[in-house]
């Protein structure tokens, strides 16, 4: 029985075909990404609103040209960049500070670092709803604290003056642990010799940080910042759950605008054009980061 079974199994996939079969899942995933991408490009070049099927037709780039003179688009671009920039910088600073505090491997530090990951386990939309409750003027604990501090009319997400601050706060609460854990891993993997040498030479701690820690940690910082930036510029859930892009157009970021354009207005042409511009921004940003990351790696290798 064994003799007859073996050749059959060998014939199932011939050695010639094996590489193709093994790469098939990756190929299918690529196709699964490329088909919607190409379709989105095609739709973005059309005047295409589902509620007006009679008006549908190619308008070749007109959707993009209209953005140039559309104040809503420029507002969206500005809000998205400000949101992404401020969240990444704040999370980076806080994440780095916490990672430095927890750098030493002790049971207490390990325990704290695990506990601090808790917000990361919370779905961002749920975190936003949680903060919405905590900032409720009737019973929210954060509103209560603000009143105690003397800010009796602090309106959190309901006022255009404080809406950005409120959603950035939620983002920072959710994602700072992400930065922290990446940077902590980086810090703990750094070679100890340079630090020991610096300590022997009596180099002050601050000097050590600027001259040794930060440059050596830079690839990790860039990686963490890249991940967060790409995610943050595509922000949807926190903002939509908190204010639906309002008040007014205060928080109308790309994803919220594109979502409303498609699901509410069924304006497929404008929605896909917006998303493709977001893709282009993401592509450029990731290229900049990756190039810098490669440069740093080369330098590190050269140095070694």
């Amino acid at each position, binding site marked *: 029985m064994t003799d007859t079974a073996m050749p059959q199994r060998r014939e199932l996939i011939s050695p010639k075909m094996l590489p193709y079969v093994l790469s098939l899942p990756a190929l299918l995933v690529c196709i699964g990404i490329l088909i919607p991408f190409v379709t989105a490009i095609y739709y973005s070049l059309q005047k295409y609103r589902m509620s007006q099927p009679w008006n549908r037709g190619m308008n070749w780039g007109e959707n993009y040209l209209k953005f140039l003179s559309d104040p809503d688009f420029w507002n969206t671009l500005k809000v998205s960049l400000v949101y992404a920039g401020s969240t990444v910088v704040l999370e980076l600073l806080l994440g780095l500070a916490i990672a430095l505090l927890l750098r030493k491997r002790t049971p207490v530090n390990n325990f704290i670092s695990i506990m601090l990951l808790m917000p990361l386990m919370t779905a961002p939309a749920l975190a936003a709803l949680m903060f919405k409750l905590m900032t409720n003027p009737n019973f929210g604990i954060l509103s209560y604290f603000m009143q105690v501090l003397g800010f009796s009319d602090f309106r959190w997400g309901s006022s255009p003056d404080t809406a950005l601050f409120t959603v950035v706060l939620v983002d920072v609460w959710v994602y700072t642990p992400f930065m922290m854990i990446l940077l902590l891993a980086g810090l703990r993997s750094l070679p100890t010799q340079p630090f020991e040498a610096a300590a022997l030479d009596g180099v002050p701690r601050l000097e050590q940080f600027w001259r040794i820690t930060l440059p050596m940690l830079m690839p990790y910082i860039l990686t963490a910042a890249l991940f967060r930036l790409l995610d943050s510029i595509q922000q949807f859930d926190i903002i939509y759950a908190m204010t639906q892009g*309002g008040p007014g157009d205060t928080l109308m970021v790309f994803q919220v605008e594109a979502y409303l354009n498609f699901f509410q207005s*069924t304006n497929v042409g404008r929605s896909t054009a917006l998303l493709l511009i977001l893709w282009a921004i993401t592509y450029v940003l990731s290229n900049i980061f990756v190039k810098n990351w490669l440069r740093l790696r080369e330098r590190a290798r050269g140095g070694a």
Partner: protein
Amino acid sequence: MYDKEKDAIGAFLRGEMDRRSLIRRLGALSVTAGAAGTLYNMMATNAQAADFDWKKHSGKGIKLLLNKHPYTDAMIANLDNFKQLTGMDVTYDIFPEDVYFDKVTAALSSGSTEYDAFMTGAYMTWTYGPAGWIVDHNEWINDPAKTNPNYNWDDMLPGVRKSCAWNGVPGGELGSDDAKQWCIPWGYEQNNLTYNAAMLEKAGLDVPTNLDQMLEVAAAVQAANDGVYGVGVRGSRSWATIHPGFLSAYANFGEADLTNDGGSLSAAMNTAGSKEFHAKWVKMIQDSGASDWSSHTWYQVGTDLGAGKSAMIFDADILGYFMNGGENAMAGQLAYAPFAANPEASAPTPNIWIWSLAMSKFSKDLDATWYFMQWASGPEHGLFGATQMDFVNPVRQSVWNSDIFRERLNKSYPGYVEMHDVSAPGASIKFTAQPLFFDLTTEWAATLQQMVANEVPVDEGLDQLADSMNSQLADAGLR
């Protein structure tokens, strides 16, 4: 058991006994309203079966896409009657409202055959209809071979029925002769006043009867009650902020969203009258609205009233209805009044929200689906839901005429029936039907938020809004 009661209801269904006699007879037999409703429904189902081949599609199954709602609960509670009547099977998916319409859009735009019928609002059909995703239900309503003789389409409240019919021409009048019946009304909401009688009494105030009075009363009741704001209205950045109290009051002053000049649509919210109205509305929110008004959906408007955080709401009447029951802190303490914002108007003109049923064009068996549609929107289920569940407001005049239903409302919801009767003649959709409805109305809400936050003066904000709307209308070939 219940033989005498069944005889009485049977006589009523055959037309041998009038309604008042039926109530008296059931009262004499010590039958509660709930039990009477059950018996009535059972008997009516039998009566339905006698006149029509309800078993024609026996053995078939249909699938529904439903929103989590008391109307859905009422239908499910009665669904076994339908299955028994027709021999059909009904399955369904229920989604919370936050994601419900996304699910509908996704299912319909992809041409999915999974769902045969679904819940919708009339506004949504202004997208679904022209997109070719739903059918003109007139084809079934007007076919005696497919619709049971007791369906009584004319029993539907005219303003509600017409609001679900549109000829598909941008700016076309709702309910015109050439209109297509894109959906079948199921339950509806008028926008009126629900108030906390004790709070108004404490401040020595009467119920406001126009917008100016509402501004004064809201400010005064807020001043007299600690930790309470004067008036709840919606404020989130959504089209849903415009359609309830806001548009009802706006229309009462004779103002319109758009003008239609021979098929060319133009924004109409920057007239002098509209600017004056907006200025008052904005002041009302700034002085006496919720401090987090810009995040308020119907949910926050309702729960604040139910929790005793607001003194009144100018919103859906059924929101006030639900807040007067259950475990709400203010249950049993709320009262209702019709509201005409314009002191010179003879009656209220509430804009309405209509939860409706519609058949998907991609259904595998529209005829069988129509059997469910006519049962679910029929007079018998309407009466069952209204008397035993929370299927309010009914869309059928016969249900509103039901003494059992009216007595139930009068007992626990003071002023509700009168409020409905006074405002029902003027109740209809006040928006202009056109494909950019959601774009323009959401932008209107965003502008309102900017005006309330003093980011832009009312005059300037409305001029900018009108310019933006006109440009979008022109771009879409509607101007």
